[in-house]
């Protein structure tokens, strides 16, 4: 099977947020009690009950005023840092599709994945203290031959699902600049842009710290040793966090 991916084109997104709701509906995620914080963006951040959200960006420059609607979600990296650092292999890159998903039964809630992620995506349940939660590109739907919920519901095709190569080729033919074509082994979620990533508030130079690979192997070695307790792994994972953050 070819590597799968999403092509997201903010310039044809109308900010309807059907994608936010479809994701919650498919994954049966509850709603949070929110306040209007002076914008239309809600929930104000990703969390364990929000795997994707739309950011409302008001941008004015010499070209004029633009109101951009940009999806905020896991990028499904080709070389995922979260998978590299995870001590227990709870985060997995699917061999067939390239989707980065997870198994909560394996996750030990060490939270090493969050600082490792160049896009700051991982969030945790239990009010932020528990296990990993993020977009898994509806791997359950994909394995059943279906389209991820967000892409299925999008009325304008701003979120498109398909073979990554095909999506990239089509976007290039239409003259878009691609964000994520080659970073980190190529992102599974590629953005088709008409302007520089900065305008869309996409990280311009996302980086994975060199120490991620080191700490990942250290933690996994320790896990392999029966003498290592979970709390010790977690302690070291937190230590790795500080290193990685630097």
């Amino acid at each position, binding site marked *: 099977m070819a590597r799968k991916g999403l092509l997201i084109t903010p310039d044809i997104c*109308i*900010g309807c947020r059907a994608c936010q709701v479809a994701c919650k509906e498919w994954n049966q995620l509850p709603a949070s009690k*929110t306040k*209007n914080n*002076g*914008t239309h963006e809600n929930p104000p951040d990703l969390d364990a009950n929000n795997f994707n959200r739309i950011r409302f960006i*008001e941008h004015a420059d010499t070209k004029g005023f633009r*109101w951009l609607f940009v999806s905020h979600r896991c990028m499904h990296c080709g070389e995922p840092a979260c998978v590299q650092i995870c001590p227990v292999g709870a985060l997995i890159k699917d061999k067939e599709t390239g989707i980065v998903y997870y198994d909560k039964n394996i996750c030990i809630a060490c939270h090493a994945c969050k600082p490792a992620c160049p896009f700051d995506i991982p969030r945790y349940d239990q009010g932020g203290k528990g296990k990993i939660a993020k977009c898994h590109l509806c791997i359950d739907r994909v394995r059943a031959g279906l389209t991820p919920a967000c892409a299925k519901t999008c009325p304008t095709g701003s979120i498109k699902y398909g073979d990554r190569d095909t999506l990239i080729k089509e976007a290039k033919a239409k003259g878009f600049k691609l964000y994520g074509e080659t970073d980190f082994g190529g992102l599974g979620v590629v953005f088709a842009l008409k302007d520089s990533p900065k305008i869309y508030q996409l990280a311009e130079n996302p980086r994975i710290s060199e120490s991620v690979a080191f700490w990942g192997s250290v933690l996994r070695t320790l896990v392999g040793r029966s003498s290592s307790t979970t709390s010790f792994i977690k302690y070291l994972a937190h230590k790795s966090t500080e290193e990685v953050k630097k």
Partner: protein
Amino acid sequence: MTSPWNDFKNSDVILNMGGNTAENHPISMKWIMKAKEERGAKLIVVDPRFTRTAAKADLYVPIRPGTDIVFLGGLIKYIIDNNLYFRDYVINYTDASFLVDPNFKLPDELDGVFSGYDEKKRSYDRSTWKFQLDESGIPKKDETLQDPRCVFQLLKKHFSRYTIDVVSNITGAPKDKIEEAYRIIASTGKPDKTCSISYAMGWTQHTVGSQNIRAFAIIQLLLGNIGMAGGGFMAQRGESNVQGSTDEGLLFHILTGYNPTPVASDVDLKTYIEKYTPKTKEPKSLNWLANRPKYIVSYLKALYGDKATKDNDFCYSYLPKREDGKNYSWLYLFDDMYKGNIKGFFAWGQNPACSGGNSIKTRQALAKLDWLVCVNLWDNETASFWKGPGMDPKKIKTEVFFLPAASSVEKEGSITNSSRLLQWRYKAVNPPGKCMPDAEIINELYFRVKKLYEKEKGAFPEPIIHLTWNYGEKDKNGKIKHFDIHKVAKEMNGYFTEDIAVHPIDKKSYKKGQQVPSFVLLRDDGSTACGNWLLCGSYTDAGNMMARRGKEDPTGLGLYSNWAWAWPLNRRIVYNRASVDPQGNPWDPKRAVIKWDAVNNRWVGDVPDGPQPPLAMEGGKLPFIMKPLGVGAIFGSGLSDGPFPTHYEPLECPFQENPLYKKHRINPTVKLFETESDVFVYCDTRYPYVGTTYRVTEHWQTGVMTRHKDWLLEMEPQIFAEIDPVLAKEKGIKSGDKVIVSSARGKIWAIAIVTPRLQPIKVMGQTIHIVGLPWHYGWRWPKDGSGGDSANILTPSVGDANVMTPESKAFMVNIEKA
């Protein structure tokens, strides 16, 4: 809409004005974005706010709420001055060349009113608003369009003052953007270019609402867009089945199929038919409503069956009659209720406490009722009005009943969308608890009322007890055992009440009980019964046409003629006879809606507006078949406030005077209500900002359903007020602050959103600030009141001069940090 939703993809230019289609009809954007991508279409948005639609537009033009006619009048002037109108279309298919009565006068000649204005009555004698007729009784014409009395020249004269400078001065829109918008829209005056207009409440919810619509109808006729692919007049209807509700005559002034409800002086069927059946002397006009007698008689036969005979006027006397001259629309209704004149009220699938203008007046009116029945999915601000803010339950005597209703997925039936498409839906799940579909609730009510009439007699029982009501097998008491919605649908379509050996129209024979295949076969002699002539053809002996799901699209225009069923007769683009020249050749062969096949003597493509040959041929007919004169009306003599749109200021506006006519600030025929709750202000320093209301994608109407859906409330949890950064700075308001927004009628809190998508606009030397709020919230839910209350607490109880749509889009407010 004159065209299907998909037709947007065929447009070269799409104007979204008086509406916000990306936010309120998001699926429309699927087709609009397709038009942009596939044919390089241009999307123009004209709106007081930079909306989510504006975010996708090629051109955004800001405009002061309530100045649409100024903008559109300027466009009409631009089209005429620059000769950009589609001349052949205008001359052949509109009344532009018709000569008007010499006594007709324009507002410029009479300080702001047309001829015939009665200042005391605040209404017009329209006898001068007519055409000069020749010996055969048809309008005299000047096809050179030069005669000073022709409609075209009068139109030109009427809008001659709407220069780009004047337009910019009154609307506050920048001149270069106005001109750019005009240039792009007017470019569709060419035969192979079309523009569709997408609009909604931003145009209708004004005291000049009907004239806003008329203004663009004139533009579409001048540009020759009506009837063409991509040239739609696209009214975006607000409820999933509001089109169905008006088709079925839920409004006070119409029966099914838009036949008028009779008034008391329409004493018998003959009088009704004489009064409401239009006649014409124009031989080339199809004048389709000349068939009205067939439709009203067939309707009566559907209601009363065998009891309706020629001898008793087909039970015409059973129809309720309105009092002559009395208006029963929403604002009048609640005014009457407020005055204590109404005993009982069914709030059926609606939430008036939040939805109508001047909520406080509405809520106080409800307190005057003896009884109130609410039919809804959830408790709401109307059903619980008696315990709402400002109410003392001890002082309220209204007995309130709540009948829980099934939702649309819990029952089977059709929904008619904005494009006249009836799509049949199956039942997905059973309703919870004791919830019942509306039809079954009505069925229960009918049976019990009928039983009461049979037992107790009463003033006039026959209209109820003689109803056929054949919607399912009946038990020994005459009560329906299982309500069958298919039987309703079949009755709507209509059936033959007797055998017909040779039908005069198609020469075929029909048996009693057969479904009527088309409304052309309905009769006025009682041999056909039909609940709604427009729906004739929707459920025939071939089956339920509304349930079809064929995906074929042979024309490539997105007509999908085998998907469900559209009225009339499955015609997808109406007025399509205007899409061809008088010889029957499409003006634009690349997007041919219909085409005359001279070899086989028939039309190919969409269902034509009548099978008659093209206009220029023997027996040919004019395209606007619903108008007695057969042409599109630029001169709208049927409107109560003028045959041409004219700018008047909203009831509540920032100015002392109408800049165009000092003597008439507001629409001179608008009804002003007079209770102590009907306060309004203008040019008042206490309320210096222009308020407007609107909707968002995440909620729907008063939010009765959407406030209960956690995923939606999560996205938009509270009522907000959008203001521009300059006003925010003046008032010390930051995004996220709680603010109080007030009008002459009431005040509410909201959360401020300070945004550059609103900008102060310069109008007639003054700086105008806009305050915009959604009207989706109500005190009843969330229970803790965190959502806020209805923005209609601010809006006035005043409506359009013709149809009384409340003016919720332009009124005056103040805003302060809480």
